């Protein structure tokens, strides 16, 4: 979501040192597995931003194609973010029924369904 992406930059402008400490805390306390997912999330976000800018600045001509591309980014983003939340050990208590393996299976299924519709919508 575009709104979500503004959040970091806004906070960055207002205070510098807490941001550094945030980065530090994140870097130290997050497992490699989660960092991998985070990297994927950042990539998806950038891809979404680029598509959105293209749509706004240049053309939205094949509107369904734009929507399909953008929705695939957003959809994949939230699915990956869900996966991240589910496998995060800190959230263990919230997801009693969802083991990490199950979470990945859910993620895979969701992505397949998502991309089925994306493919159908590309036109």
């Amino acid at each position: 979501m575009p709104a979500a992406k503004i959040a970091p930059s806004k906070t960055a402008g207002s205070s510098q040192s807490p941001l550094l400490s945030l980065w530090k805390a994140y870097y130290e306390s997050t497992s490699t597995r989660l960092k991998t997912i985070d990297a994927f999330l950042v990539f998806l976000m950038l891809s979404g931003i680029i598509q959105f800018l293209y749509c706004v600045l240049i053309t939205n001509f094949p509107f369904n194609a734009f929507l399909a591309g953008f929705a695939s980014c957003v959809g994949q983003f939230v699915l990956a973010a869900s996966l991240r939340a589910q496998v995060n050990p800190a959230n263990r208590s919230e997801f009693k029924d969802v083991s990490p393996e199950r979470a990945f299976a859910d993620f895979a299924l969701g992505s397949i369904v998502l991309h089925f519709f994306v493919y159908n919508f590309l036109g």
Partner: protein
Amino acid sequence: MPLAYSLPSDLSPATVTNTSSLLRIIALALISGAAIASRLFAVVNFESIIHEFDPWFNYRATKVLAEKGFYAFWNWFDHTAWYPLGRVVGGTIYPGLMATSGVIYNVLHALNLPVDIRNICVLLAPGFSALTAWSTYMFTKELKDESAGLLAAAFIGIAPGYISRSVAGSYDNEAIAIFLLMFTFYSWIKALKTGSAFFGTLTALFYFYMVAAWGGYAFITNMIPLHALTLILMGRFSSRLYVAYSSWYAIGTLASMQVPFVGFQPVRTSEHMAALGVFGLLQIVAFAELVRAHVSSRQFQSILFGSVIVIGVLGVLAFAGLTYKGWIAPWTGRFYSLWDTGYAKKYIPIIASVSEHQPTAWPSFFMDLQFLIFLFPAGVILCFRELRDEHVFVIIYAVVASYFAGVMVRLMLTLTPVVCVAAAVAFSSLLDTYIDPVEPEVSEVAVPVTGGDSSAASPATVDGAVSSKKAKKAAAAVADASSTGIASGIVAAIGGQSKSPKARGIFGLDTRFLIVVNALGMLLFFVLHCTYVTSSAYSSPSVVLASQNPDGSQHIIDDFREAYYWLRQNTPQDAVVMSWWDYGYQIAGMADRPTLVDNNTWNNTHIATVGKAMSSPEEVAYPILRKHDVDYVLIIFGGLIGYSGDDINKFLWMVRIAQGVWPDEIQEPNYFTPKGEYRIDDAASPTMKNSLMYKMSYYRFAELFGGSQAVDRVRGQQVPKTGPTLDYLDEAFTSENWIVRIYQVKKEDLLGRDLKTANAFANGKKRKKSKPLARRKALA
């Protein structure tokens, strides 16, 4: 522990669980059977026939789908509807219903079961009602327990509020939509409870099915965001909510855009913006939560909190700006009229004219839901007592749906499931309390609460020989273990959630007996009520009418089909039939003739044209008829046998709709007497008497009564003895009971005279010198 009645003690827990699950399955099967059977009154009393109006179109479309395949159906351009405009069918319908029957048809034929497509269409709604009962069971189970689930399933299986739209033959979108609604809600609750993306995806898939099946999907589109927003405001944000909502929204929205009739609406119209807004909000909140988990600095958190609010406000402003700039379409009229209830009557008379869009008076609620309607608030209170996330959902659903059902009769359909669920929760709580055999001790000493172990309570009721009713009770007792057994009465509940130390239970056997007998009596009464209402009020196909002979036997009035088959047999294939839009689908379906307007009311002007032709004098109407190549005009007239849904009673809507487009030619007040009465007898206003509709309705009506006074049985008024004359139309056909009258539009006179003069000439009257000259010019 004293017991009110003895329990068999030699049953192992495994036997108990196995037996109760077997009984549950049997009960569900019986409920499904009852749900299907109670919808078959229409087939038994009449025949296997498609009902009403819209179903005829759905049936026709399904036939195309079954015969020509999916692609032909998708690209189907219907030349015969909205003559001469035509209609792109594939892009202007919700194809879910037809696709469902098409799939069933093909599967059955693949299994070498040559079932007629008509029978599939007729029986689709009863079949899906069984599935609805099952999904309501699943939904309620998540809310309370299996016993409440079974009760809810039984309630929705036979509640007239749902039967009214799902009897056999009522082949409409709602037939499958309520199942989809309940199942979508069930999987949403499940997704929220477990935080599983699998159930989120399932929600999205069923949401997609729902979008493809019914325009009412907007209800889901707004209910789920409303629930999510309420949870956030209550401070109940959790990662489970994030997972469930995000996966539903991301996949569901993309999926919903695959339906051509919906198209880009999910990103363009206001109805869908709430879902988008909550989606954005959830992303922000989730991000903030993530950051908060890593940093604990207070200053940073306050900044974060502030920026979340700022972003929220910016989002609202952006939405307002986009609406203002026209990027996002404002609320559509149909949706808007739910909030501003005077809106439709003012600006969209077509919507206001439909009888199912009228507000609901209380007898309809009672008729459709009987004792559920007053158990419903009790169930809502019980939801408040526990208030888990899913109970919040039911509460919101209850408020929203009861408002909607009050505004529009038709939306009773969305209220019925939640009433059944809430009533089942209340009813099973009552039974739980009074069937539990454990008696509290009389002493003042606090007794530990026994709710925890189900095995203590359950063996009692799971007896050997049990009917399905007993099975429900058994399940109720088993489930007593769950939440409701925990002590928190009204006193305890109001004073916070601390558990009351007081013992909870019922003394004596007679009290239990009284309550249980009372409850069973109410259930029995409900069954009788439902059977009566279903058989008497909701099982009429409205294509075939029934009346009673003096000796009590049934008399079938089959005028509609008689007339439609007359059209089919006696008119050329391309003869255009004009009628009021209500009958468009039936004419297309049964008579197979092109129509000017039909029930898909997409073109107001076209409908107003028909309204104008009907409400104008003959000589004004004739050019309109000729310009639209109308060969036959079909009207419904109930004056002879007292059929109140006829065109004279709908006439004012025709006038109103025509007035909306030609305000200076048609004025509603002209159709009333100076005293403001709507009359058809001698005192009728001249405009009324000259209107084409009046003339066609009462043409030669008085002759039928010989010399005696002719009476219109619907209006209860006396018809003038010298009836109207027709110059531009010929009576072509009138059905047995005069319900359907068909007139043929005369061609222009061969000699170039106008038809009035020609008629007068043929009747041997002298024509007046002055008039015809001007008329002839006007016609040429």
